């Protein structure tokens, strides 16, 4: 089985970029309901720039790929999503040690912890953490149980999607949506929706590795 190397991580980022582009209008529509209607546009611009940066400056180790993606997102996305996704990739880069399933799970967990710290948010606040958190738990659990990375990421993607859907009834406690109070209930959180795409992209792009 091939390792989770620089090419694999770059493929993950390209798949995430493809999904964001495909879902751009849907993400923006979700954001229009409870935010400021720019999540899809901003993330589409940022992920496209990240793919371009990887093309212009190919890296030969996986952590360097993650760092390039982080710095590009921080530079180009703006708003709150830029620092949050940038922090996810930056912390994941710092924690990546190895090229197997256990290393991937630890890196994703470090990225999640970074988003928690940067956003001063927790699960249940109706944010991207509501998709990323359950994904981390599923990934850690499956890897610890000795399942393949493909199986583990598949479980993580399912958990992320379920977490995304479960944000609908929640009242937002962080970000611009929180100004709406009770009126934020009844809408899926756009950050949780894009975070679910990130995990889904990993499941697709890293299948058969680790």
């Amino acid at each position, binding site marked *: 089985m091939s390792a989770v190397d620089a090419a694999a991580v770059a493929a993950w980022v390209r798949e995430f970029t493809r999904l964001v582009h495909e879902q751009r209008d849907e993400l923006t529509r979700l954001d229009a309901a409870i935010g400021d*209607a720019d999540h899809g546009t901003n993330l589409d611009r940022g992920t496209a720039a990240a793919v371009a940066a990887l093309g212009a400056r190919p890296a030969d180790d996986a952590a360097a790929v993650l760092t390039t993606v982080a710095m590009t997102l*921080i530079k180009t996305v*703006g708003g*709150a999503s830029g620092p949050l996704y*940038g922090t996810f990739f930056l912390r994941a880069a710092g924690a990546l040690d190895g090229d197997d399933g256990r290393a991937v799970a630890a890196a994703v967990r470090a990225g999640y912890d970074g988003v928690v710290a940067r*956003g001063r948010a927790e699960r249940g606040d109706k944010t991207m953490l509501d998709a990323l958190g359950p994904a981390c738990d599923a990934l850690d659990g499956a890897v610890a149980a000795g399942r393949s990375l493909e199986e583990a990421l598949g479980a993580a993607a399912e958990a992320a999607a379920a977490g995304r859907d479960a944000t609908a009834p929640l009242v937002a406690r962080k970000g*611009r949506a929180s*100004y709406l*109070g009770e009126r934020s209930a009844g809408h899926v959180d756009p950050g949780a929706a894009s975070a679910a795409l990130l995990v889904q992209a990993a499941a697709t792009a890293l299948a058969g590795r680790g």
Partner: protein
Amino acid sequence: MQKLVNDPADVVAEALRGLAAAHPDLRVDHGERVVFRGDAPVRGKVGLVSGGGSGHEPMHAGFVGAGMLDAACAGEVFTSPVPDQVVAATRGVDGGAGVLHIVKNYTGDVMNFEMAAELVAAGSDTEVVAVVTDDDVAVQDSLYTAGRRGVGVTVLVEKLAGAAAEEGRPLAEVADVARRAAASGRSMGMALTSCTVPAAGRPTFDLPEGEMEIGIGIHGEPGRRRVPLAPAREVAEMLVEPVLGDLDMTGGDEVIALVNGMGGTPLIELYLMYAEVVAVLERAGVRVARNLVGSYMTSLDMAGCSVTLLEADDELLRLWDAPVRTPSLRWGA
């Protein structure tokens, strides 16, 4: 909605070109979209950096100059600037005495300034302190929201901290003035119309004729309630009373009062509102020691206004009276 633009995507860049042409004493970095005072960095002086989404002009670039900000970062319309811009601004104003970041309390602004401060700390020994403004009483300050929004008091904080920095005071003291000013001021705004983001081309929210939104945010965020249009006299009460209640003011207090236009309201209405605000304050036994009436922190073309009251002491009044020389606020210099 008709706008004076070329391509909506170029609004911020082209406005900065005009600002540079109109104010040759400022230096504009068009690549990073940072506006510097012409003599930055000023040796031995604490540098003041602010910034935020564009669309609130003259905030912040209009307040760059002697006695106020050393640099302002211009984000996209209603979108926080990115860390690279803030890093460039911070490095460009570092005169050896440290740099103060004045940040309005919005999730994106706070995070981007924080990341910039971390990047500066990683690459140099420049000391950076951040002060966050959060004066909008329309939002409940609780664990269940992102906290009160930073609005009108930001203008006053930039003036007061700018004066302290110009006196050559150290970073800790300048930051203390900023914090004290921010803690002493509260605001409440209202809208008569929505605003229209150039790239969106249609109003951000619907506000039918005959209604107004009380507690509006400067990006069109929802307020406390939507009510039928009322006479200015009653609007003044709706804005001033929650501010006084939050500041817990008692008779005999002195304030700096800002009656601020949202961008689409003429000065004649703002003066009319100011008279009503003074009347409400007089009844409450609060005296206006200094005032500012005009459009200082706008929301593009939104019609409406906000009221900011800052409880002032002798030191803050002295700093308020100190000379300032910027495109949009200047006296004594």
